[in-house]
């Protein structure tokens, strides 16, 4: 079975500072992978590089068998990669509806404005509200909805629970669960280990830019992951 996403020997830096070092992994269609690690481990940079927002300094990214390393971000969206960026990054002066419509990439039986609003009913009364006036949870729902409007085959989610009240996080994960059950392929970055293990099939732990642990959520124990997270005994893959 060829993987939907294949990352090989990926290197990415911020100026001279290496953020992603020699990272390799694959994601099969329908899989949900959790990417965990401390702040600064390189998770956001990795997701941005996969989405095309960041230029890698080495290695390759392949999507559906095709090398997309040199493909610009907007074209990757056309191929089916969508990123929900860290910090939501809604277009502040556009309304919720406009934020969703901007990303519109119609597909038969796929996501459209009505379906997204059905999936996130809390947004329905907020259609004409300016995005900058929304609460954290509402913004997060809009951001995920916006990514869905591109009808992605691979959904990348960067810290969707950041800065949200627990109740809001619950709501977000409930929607994500529905997506997972419908067979979506996702990579999600999550600080909350419990949620990550509960939502994902597989876990990849990063430390200082490298992958230090991977495995399915059932076979890895919390102690192993925590150890890898903090780099306590240099656990190898």
């Amino acid at each position, binding site marked *: 079975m060829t993987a939907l996403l294949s990352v090989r020997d990926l290197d990415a830096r911020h100026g001279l500072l290496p953020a992603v070092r020699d990272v390799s992994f694959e994601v099969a269609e329908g899989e949900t992978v959790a990417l965990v690690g401390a702040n600064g481990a390189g998770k956001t940079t990795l997701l941005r590089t996969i*989405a*095309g*927002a960041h230029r890698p300094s080495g290695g390759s990214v392949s999507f559906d068998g095709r090398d997309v390393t040199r493909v*610009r*971000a*907007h*074209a990757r*969206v*056309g191929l089916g990669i*969508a*990123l929900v*960026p860290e910090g939501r*990054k*809604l*277009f*502040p*002066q*556009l309304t919720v509806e*406009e*934020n969703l*419509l*901007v*990303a*519109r*990439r119609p597909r038969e039986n796929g996501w459209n404005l009505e379906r997204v609003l059905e999936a996130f009913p809390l947004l329905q009364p907020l259609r004409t509200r300016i995005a900058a006036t929304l609460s954290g949870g509402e913004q997060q729902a809009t951001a995920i909805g*916006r*990514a869905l*409007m*591109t009808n992605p085959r691979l959904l990348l989610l960067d810290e969707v629970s950041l800065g949200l009240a627990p109740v809001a996080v619950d709501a977000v994960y409930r929607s994500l669960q529905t997506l997972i059950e419908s067979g979506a392929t996702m990579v999600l970055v999550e600080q909350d280990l419990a949620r990550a293990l509960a939502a994902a099939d597989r876990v990849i732990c990063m430390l200082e830019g490298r992958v230090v642990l991977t495995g399915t959520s059932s076979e890895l124990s919390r102690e192993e992951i925590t150890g890898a997270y903090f780099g306590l005994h240099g656990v190898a893959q």
Partner: protein
Amino acid sequence: MTWVNDVVQGILLGGVYALLACGLALMFGVMRIINLAHGDLAVVGAYLVLVVLDHANISPFLALVPVLPVMLIAGYGLQRIVLDRALRAGVLVPLLSTFGLSIVIQNILLEKFSPDVRSLGGQAGSIATGSWSVTNAISISQIGALIVVVAIAVLGGLQLFLSRTQAGRRMRATAQDPDTAELVGVDSRAVYARATALAVAIAAVAGLFLAIRSTFYPFAGPTQLIFAFEAVVIGGMTSLWGTLAGGMILGVAQTVGGQINTQYPVLAGHIVFLAVLALRAALGRQIS
């Protein structure tokens, strides 16, 4: 009662400034580029109409029709070839690039055409000279009224484009956050190029009406540029209708100033501009 006439004349003049300012406002709003060649591009539009008129005995308004696609393509090319790279290199670079372009345009115009002052009013027919007398003291020139109508149409059309169409929405999104726009499938470079294309085409329209209403010559660009800037900044730089208002405020300031002393119109405009900026700064409002 002449004051009322001055205000009316000022509003008509404001139509010209608003039309000139429209393209400038678009480029600044979408890309934060201060296009120092904008006035010169308007003058290029006027000269291109002149070239068409040299080959065909038609009205200047009709002559604009073939000029517009040329200007659209020129604007698109300008963005993709020059300004895209300039943007990535820093804030100052677009400034210098457009200034360089301004010098290049002015001197090429000088070479191809003479330094003579020209006008398209003569070929525009009676509309260029006709006027309506509203009362004994107030008269409205037909060309002035036409320009205001065109300015409102262009600004309105642009506003509709930005708020109601998908392309317009994507342009606004790219203006607010180009990186995230890329992440939702918007080709930001193409959006920028479209914005510049529109801006340059609108500049050509403005150039045509300027040429009909008054005169033009190869170095006429920078004077128009500064008025266009003043209109944009007075109008607040946040909306296109603000640009219309800004143009009219400038127009009124100039005509009223001209009444006080015939040497003062431009100066009066400058003073009003500075006063508006100072007032805004004092009120602590950040408009940029």
